[in-house]
């Protein structure tokens, strides 16, 4: 990753201070994105083709397709061409923003992605907010009360949360809260009673814009269980990471100095210690984006949440090459951009990183 710094001549960014090193750092990172993107495109392209079977064969199910018909359809879809031709053709499309059309639904991949992505994003944002708001305080408390029953029970719960199989956890919550107690709806994004055109794709916002009485409330109630399920693993990871980072910082000289100066424990922990402990925590939060997307695949499947996770899983089963490779590219691009943002943020918090 450090190779990026060699890309730019020293003349442009002579000044050591100010924005220049930061810009250089950002450009360096951007330059690295190009080969990474190419690598991802190759993996995305070949991964789905490595699986046995092809989309044409799966179209007809138990009914066997005549070999001539199979060949005709493969030809029609351009799947009979040599792999490298298909790959370069695909790359050519990507450069012009053309992700191809689904072999199954015949709809453009990008359209479907844009349509479904807000649902995943809405769920992921809610989940990460919950994970951060609960995870950081839990980690701080556990570190401050190190070795007590409180620390042990918090970390015990975190360990359970971390090892929870999502599918089982989701079903358990549905059966208990929706089935047994009847507090929350079972699955979906909003009650079927409400129907309004999609404006932003975020149900919480769209339900407010719609002006229909009760729509927002319904959208919130449908969001509760999937948010809990998706937040579980990141919450556990963030809590554990915060705890260990805090423990490290609490032992530092400057914290002892702050304490001996008579600063209140809230100031010592909240400002001096936590601020420094947050650096690895932010990295962890950034890394959770990948975890969230992976978790979204299962969470969306259980809660019939119409996002990209469910869309990708269905497409793998149908060998919908275009959707799988296009979806993977778009997801990878997003993770790369988010990581870039995290890196930049990190650079701002800790100037030493830039060098």
């Amino acid at each position, binding site marked *: 990753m450090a190779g990026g710094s060699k890309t730019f001549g020293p003349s442009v960014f002579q000044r050591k201070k100010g924005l220049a090193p930061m810009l250089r750092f950002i450009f360096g990172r951007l330059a690295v994105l190009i080969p990474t993107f190419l690598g991802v495109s190759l993996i995305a392209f070949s991964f789905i083709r490595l699986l046995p*079977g092809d989309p044409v064969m799966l179209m007809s199910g138990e009914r066997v397709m005549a070999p001539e018909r199979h060949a005709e359809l493969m030809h029609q879809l351009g799947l009979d061409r040599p792999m490298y031709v298909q790959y370069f053709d695909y790359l050519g499309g990507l450069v012009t923003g053309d992700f191809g059309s689904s072999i199954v639904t015949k709809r453009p991949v990008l359209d479907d992605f844009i349509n479904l992505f807000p649902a995943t994003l809405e769920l992921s944002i809610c989940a990460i907010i919950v994970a951060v708001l609960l995870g950081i305080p839990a980690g701080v408390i556990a570190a401050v009360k190190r070795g007590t029953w409180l620390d042990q029970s918090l970390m015990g719960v975190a360990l359970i949360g971390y090892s929870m199989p999502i599918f089982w956890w989701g079903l358990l919550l549905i*059966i208990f809260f929706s089935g047994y107690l009847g507090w929350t709806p079972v699955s979906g994004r909003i009650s079927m009673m409400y129907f309004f055109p999609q404006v932003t794709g975020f149900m919480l916002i769209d339900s407010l814009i719609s002006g*229909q009485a009760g729509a927002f409330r319904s959208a919130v109630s449908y969001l509760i269980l999937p948010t809990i399920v998706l937040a579980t693993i990141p919450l556990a990871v963030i809590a554990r990471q915060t705890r260990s980072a805090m423990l490290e910082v609490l032992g530092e000289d400057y914290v002892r100095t702050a304490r001996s100066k008579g600063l209140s424990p809230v100031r010592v922990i909240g400002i001096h210690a936590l601020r420094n402990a947050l650096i690895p925590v932010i990295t962890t939060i950034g890394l959770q984006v990948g975890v969230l997307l992976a978790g979204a695949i299962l969470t969306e499947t259980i809660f019939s949440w119409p996002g990209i996770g469910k869309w990708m899983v269905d497409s793998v089963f149908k060998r919908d090459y275009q959707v799988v490779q296009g979806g993977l590219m778009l997801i990878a691009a997003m993770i790369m951009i988010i990581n870039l943002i995290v890196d930049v943020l990190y650079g701002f918090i800790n100037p030493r990183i830039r060098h």
Partner: protein
Amino acid sequence: MKKLSTLLAATAIATLMAGSAWSKTFVYCSEASPEGFDPGMYTGGQTFDAAAHTVYNRLVEFKRGTTEIEPALAESWEISADGKEYTFKLRPGVKFQTTEYFTPTRELNADDVIFSFERQYKADNAWNKYVPGASWEYFSGMGLPDLLEKVEKVDDLTVKIVLKRPEAPLLANLGMPFISILSKEYADKLQAEGKMELMNQQPLGTGPFTFVAYQPDAAIRYKANPDYWGGKQKIDDLVFAITTDAAVRAQKLKAGECHLMSYPNAADVAELKADPNLHISEQAGLNVSYLAYNTLVPPFDKAEVRKALNMAVNRQAIVDAVFQGAATVAKNPIPPTMWSYNDKVEDDKYDPEAAKKMLEDAGVKDLKMKIWAMPVARPYMLNARRAAELMQADLAKIGVTVEIVSYEWAEYLKLSSAKDRDGAAILGWTGDNGDPDNFLDTLLGCDAVGGNNRAQWCNKEFDDLVTKAKETSDVAERTKLYEEAQIVFKKEAPWNTLDHSLAVVPMSKKVSGFVQSPLGDFVFEGVDIAE
């Protein structure tokens, strides 16, 4: 003009929203997203439920709850003496749906029917490739491109279909979803505007429900078609709530979030039955599951060896273990609900002793064989691995060593049809149209060897019977021929017939008028919900 259309759209949405507050809305928890809304291009049952049985009609249709053909858009038909010409009289006064995106100016006529056929097989038809990768799998799978000589207009309300050879199952084929009748007027408009792909996204037909909106992977909305030729529906709105996980669908039904669900897990059925608010409808499915020997490979080329292996397997135990009672042991290759089912056929008795002796008499010793187990659950076989293990244990008792093999599903489908396949394969079939030909010729005919005929079994006596039945229009005559064919099948034993499973549909007790389709379709015409 633009302002006016915006105002109209706003009014339409407002009306719809106002309607949702008090209208009678039926919610169906469906198992998968539709592949699209043009039933000609797809093969998935969920697509047919979402497009063909709601928005569209066909010339003829299956009478609700049966596989009998009844008039639909065609009021009557005549078949020529040589069985090659079918003349359909169209129902007069049938209106296409009026939607936000299209207002029809004329009623159904012969042009619509001809358009609906020609787009599926005439390469020069502009609609043949109207979206990238468009293909007409059912149309070609049912052999129509080779069979059709022409489809012609006699007058505005008369259409003649001319065949290259007589084919009695044609009528049943015409009742199938893929040959739904579309509006040529709507197609022409889309073509003129350069928006042909909308045919697959905003469907428009003559059916009981008008398409309103599709929210991908979440819900499909329809409203009752006020102009429906069969009369307006009792419900106002129909919603498909797409819920892929069967356990979640069951929870939604129990919580009252939907009125009816498709395909429950076998394990959930008992709990659903115990719920006082639910009613469970059960019907024998139009399916069969089988173990197909490769009859081209010795010693499985000998009927007595196949018969002996059949007798060594306790199929009742398989049905009990895999289906927990929701299936029956099969003795014929067609299900008991299908016409021409021969109940007089005597089933192979479970008799390991006799089986062992038969094998010895046939000179087979220390037989080693493979059994192929499907990697997926299908309605006709929920757990092929478990079934294979039970067969393995049974066959071990007569000295046959079985190795169980499996492949990824797509690969399994391909490899299992190879002529040199090593081993016997578990597979099955769900009927498309209720015609015995759809099982007997499709799965066991000589033409299907190397394809759907997984037993690679070509028996002249059997093949002559089913071919003759295909060319005869008289149902009584066909019944006789198929009954005989089943006797030949049992004697020759190319398969060990395993089971016919039950189709189970759980629904709220408030639902009335839902009739289960033997073809496994979910048809909501005629349903009602108590307030």
